[in-house]
C-alpha cells in the first residue's frame, strides 16, 4: 500500500476510508473519523482547514520543544520531581529516560490506539535494538551508524517473521502469541549463548567505535538532546502514519475488520505494516536507550517492559498521542520517585502493614493502574478533557458553542473517554 504524503492526496483517500467505520456502525459513526485524524478534519468541500485548535496546539508544541532544548543550559529546580537542578547529569538522565519511554509508549500507541492490536511482545523489538546494537558494537569493528543500520535490518526481518505469524490470530490469542515470541527472545538472552548476551549480568557498551560526544557522564546532555530528537521524530512519524492512508485503513480495521475486507482492502497487510513500523521505531528507541544506559540489561527485553508500555498508554489515555507521551513521562518519574521514597527513612519507620506495600513501587503503580482502569476510563487526558468540558458547561452552553469549529472541538473533547473505551472493546 502506498502512503500519500501530500495533504490533498491524504485527505481525499482519507475521506474514503473514513466512510468505512461510519457507514453503518451506530454509535461509532460520529466518533471514528475524528479520532483517527483529529488535527485534519476536512470541510465538506474536501479541503483541509487548519482550525484554531491546530494552530494553538502547534505553537504550544513548538514552544515546549524550545524550552526542552534549552533545559540543559538552565538552572531550574523542581523539588519532588527531579533529583537536582536541570543542568545536572542526574536530572538530565531521568529526563532523557522520560523522553525515550514516552517515545516507546507512542510506538505502542500506534499498535493499540491506532490498529487495535494488543501486543504483549513489543519489548522484543526494543530489546532487539538494545541487544542487537550492543552485540554488533561488541563483536564488529564498525562505526555507530552502520552498526545501527545493521541492527535495523535484523529488526525489520524479525518483525516481519513474528508479525506475519502472530497476525494469523487476533484479539486475546494475538496477545498470548506475541507474548510467547517475546518470551522466547527473553529466554535466549537469559541463556547467554556463547557469551554473546551476557546473561543476567547484561552487556556493557563498548565505546571504542562511538563518537566522543556520546560517551561519558559529562556528555549526558548530548544524550538528552538525542533522546529529545528521537521523541520529536517518533511523534512526527506516528502522526504521519496515523493520518496516512494506511493509518486510516488500520483504524477502520480496528472498528470493523469484516467491512474492510468486503471493500476489497487487505486488513492483514495493513496490520503487518503498522506492526513492522512500530517495531522498527521502538528498536531505534532501544538503540538510544543503550547509549543512554551505556549497557544492555535483560529487563530491556522482558515482558515487564511491554507491560510497562501498556500501563503508560492506558494511564495517559488509549487512542491519544499526547496521552501516550504524558503517560510515559508520568510513569517514569513516578517510578523513580517511588523508588526513592521506598528507601527513605520515613517509610522505614512505619509499622509493617504500611511499610511493606509502600516500599514496593510496583505495588503502588499496579494499584494506581487498576484504579485508573476502573474509574478513569479515558486515562489522564480523557479525564482532563472531561473536566474541561464540565467547566465549559458550567460557564454556559451558549458561550461555548459560538461557531461550528468550537462545536466540533467540544465533540472531540467529549469523545475522548468514549473513544478510549471503544478502542479497548474493539481490540478484543
Amino acid at each position, binding site marked *: 500500500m502506498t502512503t500519500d504524503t501530500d495533504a490533498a492526496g491524504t485527505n481525499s483517500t482519507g475521506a474514503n476510508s473514513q466512510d468505512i467505520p461510519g457507514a453503518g456502525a451506530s454509535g461509532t459513526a460520529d466518533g471514528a473519523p475524528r479520532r483517527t485524524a483529529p488535527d485534519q478534519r476536512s470541510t465538506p468541500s474536501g479541503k483541509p482547514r487548519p482550525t484554531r485548535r491546530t494552530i494553538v496546539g502547534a505553537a504550544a508544541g513548538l514552544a515546549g520543544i524550545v524550552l526542552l532544548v534549552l533545559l540543559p543550559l538552565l538552572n531550574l529546580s523542581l523539588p519532588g520531581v527531579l533529583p537536582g537542578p536541570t543542568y545536572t547529569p542526574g536530572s538530565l538522565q531521568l529526563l532523557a529516560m522520560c523522553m525515550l519511554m514516552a517515545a516507546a509508549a507512542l510506538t505502542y500507541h500506534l499498535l493499540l490506539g491506532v490498529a487495535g492490536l494488543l501486543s504483549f511482545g513489543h519489548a522484543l523489538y526494543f530489546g532487539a535494538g538494545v541487544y542487537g546494537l550492543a552485540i554488533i558494537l561488541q563483536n564488529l569493528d564498525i562505526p555507530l551508524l552502520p552498526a545501527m543500520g545493521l541492527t535495523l535490518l535484523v529488526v525489520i526481518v524479525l518483525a516481519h517473521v513474528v508479525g506475519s505469524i502472530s497476525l*494469523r490470530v487476533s484479539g*486475546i*490469542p494475538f*496477545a498470548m502469541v506475541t507474548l*510467547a515470541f517475546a518470551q522466547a527472545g527473553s529466554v535466549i538472552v537469559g541463556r547467554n549463548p556463547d557469551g554473546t548476551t551476557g546473561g543476567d549480568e547484561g552487556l556493557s557498551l563498548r565505546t571504542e567505535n562511538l563518537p566522543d560526544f556520546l560517551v561519558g557522564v559529562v556528555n549526558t546532555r548530548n544524550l538528552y538532546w538525542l533522546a529529545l530528537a528521537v521523541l520529536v521524530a517518533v511523534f512526527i512519524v506516528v502522526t504521519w502514519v496515523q493520518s496516512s492512508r494506511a493509518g486510516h485503513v488500520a483504524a477502520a480495521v480496528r472498528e470493523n475488520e469484516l467491512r474492510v475486507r468486503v471493500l476489497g482492502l487487505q486488513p492483514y497487510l495493513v496490520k503487518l505494516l503498522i506492526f513492522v513500523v512500530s517495531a522498527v521505531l521502538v528498536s531505534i528507541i532501544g538503540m538510544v536507550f543503550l547509549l543512554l544506559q551505556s549497557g544492555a540489561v535483560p529487563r530491556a527485553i522482558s515482558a515487564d517492559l511491554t507491560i510497562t508500555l501498556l500501563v503508560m498508554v492506558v494511564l495517559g489515555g488509549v487512542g491519544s498521542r499526547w496521552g501516550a507521551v504524558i503517560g510515559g513521562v508520568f510513569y517514569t518519574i513516578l517510578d523513580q520517585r517511588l523508588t526513592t521514597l521506598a528507601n527513605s527513612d520515613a517509610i522505614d519507620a512505619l509499622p509493617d502493614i504500611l511499610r511493606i506495600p509502600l516500599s514496593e513501587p*510496583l505495588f503502588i*503503580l*499496579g494499584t494506581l493502574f487498576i484504579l485508573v482502569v476502573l474509574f478513569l476510563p479515558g486515562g489522564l487526558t480523557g479525564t482532563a478533557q472531561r473536566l474541561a468540558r464540565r467547566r465549559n458547561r458550567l460557564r454556559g452552553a451558549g458561550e461555548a458553542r459560538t461557531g461550528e469549529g468550537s462545536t466540533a472541538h467540544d465533540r472531540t473533547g467529549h469523545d475522548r473517554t468514549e473513544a478510549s473505551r471503544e478502542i*479497548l472493546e474493539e481490540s*478484543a
Partner: protein
Amino acid sequence: MSTVVLLLFTGLGLGALYFLVAAGLSLIYGLMGVLNFAHGAFLTLGAFAGWEVARRTGSDDWGIFLLSLLVGAAAGAAFAAFTEFVLIRRLYQRHIEQLLITLGLSLAAVALFDGIWGTDPVFIQGPAWFKDTTEILGARVPNDRFVCIIAAVLVLLAMVFFLKNTRYGMIIRAGVENRSMVTALGIDVRKAFTLVFTIGGAAAGLGGVLASHYFGYVSPMLGGSLLIFAFIVTVIGGLGSLTGAAIAAVAVAVLQQFANFYLGGTGDFVVVLALALVLLFRPSGLLGRTS
C-alpha cells in the same frame, strides 16, 4: 532407554503443573473471554501459603503435606474469588479492560509478595519420600514427579466429573458454547463466572504447592514463569477446551524436556516454534472450535 524414561516422567510432572495452571485459564477464557494475567499470582500465593503451613508446623510428614495442598488450594481459590467479585464483576463484557485489571493486579500482587516474603527463593522441605527415587525400566525417577502427575490426573477427573455430571458444570459447559443463549434461558451466568474463577484459582493454588516441591523453592516470580507456558499450552490446546489443555500441557512439557536434553537446552525455543507451527496450520488450536 533409562534417559528417555526419566525425561518422559520429568516431562509428565512438568506437564501436570502446566495443566493445573492452564485448566483454570482455559475455562475462564472459554466462559468469560478474560485472559487472566493474575493467574500466576494465584499460583504464587498458593505456593507461599503451602510453604507457611509447612514452616509454622515445622514438620514434613505426609499429613502436613496434604494440609499444605489444601491450604494452598484454598488460598488460590479465595484470591481468585475476591478478584472476580471485587474487580472483574464491574467490567463484564469489556474484555480488554478486564485483562488490564488482572495485569495491574498481578503487578501489585507480585510486588506485595516481594515485600512480604522477599525476592530471594525460599527453599522448601517435603516428606522425605519426595527425595527418593523409584526405579522404572532402569530409570531412577524422583518421586515428586509422581505426586504432581497423580494430583493433576485427579484434578482433571474431578473437573470432568463436575462439568459432565452436575448442574453448575452443565451451565458452565453451556456458557462456554453459547453464553447469550444460557442467559436467555433465565440462568444467572454470573454465579458460574465466580465459580469458574474459584475453581481455576484452586487448581492454580494446588499447582503452586506442587510446583514448589517440583522445583524445590518458592519465589514471587514462580507464577509468572509458569504462566507464560500455561498461555502457550492454552493456545495450542484450543482456548476453552479442558481436554485440549491436558493434551497440550503434556505435549509441550515432554517436548520441552526432550529438546532441553537432546538439542542442547533449546526447550523453550522449541516450544515457541511448536506454537508458531500450530498457529500456521490450526489457528484455533488442537481442540479449539474453528471459527
